[in-house]
């Protein structure tokens, strides 16, 4: 059911959603960073959509690896390697299967978060994308373990991602550019957490209509 087409649709939906949220992401990054996160991610996802239009890999795994590589090649900044690694690790975890089970999806996203964590060495609570990604992946895995269907499971993941992003507001940043602000980073939502929530929400949106 979750074939390459599904993941391509996810990437397209994510690109749409990031484009729509671009100014908000940039505003968040202006407050505690350098004001480029919206532009960065938009540039990367636009390139990823283009890459998939040029050549659509047959398997979900290969597709996500291609998307990750494209992000690494086109985004730059902190979020480029981090998101790029996330997609690549997810893709590698999926191997060469033509279709993905809910359990395999949860496992792939766990691999994605592990990749982000090991590359950026941020833990939850450091006020980064990890604060949205980690709870989302936990919620997904939990829902799958409880036997819920993929739509319900992704609803839970999206809600957890959004909640995780919002939970970054009171945090003091310890990683990324916002950490330079020390206590002044408190009171703002982390832009990477906000974009991570958009990506998980896009997954839920695509699943809902699949």
């Amino acid at each position, binding site marked *: 059911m979750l074939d390459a087409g599904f993941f391509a649709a996810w990437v397209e939906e994510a690109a749409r959603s990031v484009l729509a949220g671009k100014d908000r992401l*940039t*505003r968040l990054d*202006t407050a*505690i*960073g*350098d*004001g*480029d996160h919206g*532009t*960065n991610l938009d*540039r990367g996802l636009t390139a990823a959509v283009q890459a998939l239009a040029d050549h659509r890999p047959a398997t979900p795994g290969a597709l996500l690896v291609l998307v990750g590589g494209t992000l*690494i*090649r*086109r*985004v*730059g*900044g*902190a*979020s*480029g*390697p*981090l998101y790029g690694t996330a997609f690549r690790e997810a893709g590698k975890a999926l191997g060469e299967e033509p279709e993905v089970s809910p359990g395999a999806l949860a496992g792939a996203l766990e691999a994605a978060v592990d990749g982000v964590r090991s*590359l*950026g060495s941020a833990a939850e609570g450091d006020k980064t994308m990890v604060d949205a990604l980690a709870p989302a992946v936990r919620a997904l895995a939990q829902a799958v373990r409880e036997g819920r269907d993929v739509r319900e499971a992704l609803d839970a993941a999206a809600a957890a991602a959004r909640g995780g992003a919002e939970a970054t507001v009171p945090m003091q940043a*310890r*990683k*990324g*550019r916002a*950490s*330079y*602000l*020390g206590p*002044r980073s408190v009171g703002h939502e982390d832009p990477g957490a906000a974009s991570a929530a958009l990506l998980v929400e896009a997954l839920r949106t695509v699943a809902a209509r699949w």
Partner: protein
Amino acid sequence: MKKLINDPGTVVPDALRGLAAAHPRLRVDLENRIVLRASGPRPGKVGLVSGGGSGHEPLHGGFVGYGMLDAACPGEVFTSPVPDQVVQASTAVDGGAGVLHVVKNYTGDVLNFRMAAELCAEEGVEVASVLVDDDVAVRDSLHTAGRRGTGATLFVEKVAGALAETGAPLAEVTRVAREVVGRSRSFGVALSACTVPAAGGPSFDLGETEAEFGVGIHGEPGRSREAVRDARGLVSVALDAICADMPVSGDVLVLLNGMGATPLIELHIAFAEVVDQLAGRGARVARSLVGNYVTSLDMQGFSVTICRLTEELTRLWDAPVETPALRWGR
């Protein structure tokens, strides 16, 4: 937002075209966004590659040339370059003696250069890296992203570049680069924010009597917002912060750096203060540079970078350099 640009989306490629046209001794690879010496790599010479987000001009492209960098990789505005740029630059400048990456300590720069270094190794290019983290406004800690790299980057590029030019091996060039980092500290003050073209508005709002203390070079707010002072007072805040972190005495090299929109006449006023106040603290400004070198787009403000000189560092600083933005001795 009023800017002398064509389109917020094409700022970097448009500027690279101008850089190429202005400096025939550079070879600007517009497609891959790499700035190289037109003369190409010299066999047996360590290659020096740096890069980072655009918006800090003349850093880094303006420092490509004899005695300094072999290549620069400009990213989008305030966005570190991607690994491909760094790999291609490193491959292009490798004269068989390996390549040193000069990396400013920002998560994005660190990650992209790290990925690039891994790819370089796969392609058989020996790479070493030096991480520049001189900004005392950021409290250093093992658990955070650590200090930013700012003005000391110029010192590292100049000094390591001079040593590389002598044919010194990669380990030596790396050693001296790290030594410069260890002996250098910076502090920046903003009188106004900058405007990232794609963001369209100022990165923060400062009142008519406010200044941001401890700013970096990406328009991020600083360590604190305080009442603005005269040049004397602002310089003293910067020197207090630097000297609290690194005892400063003896002969020093000073960069009095403008953030991009502060006129030279004001930088000279601030520099006179630096010289006087350092003398009062027992240090002598033996070498110096005053101007807009490590900028933050159209930000008004300045930073001070101090490097405690050694005989070797002084000699390497004085060595000939011939780049668009820094030139002496030949």
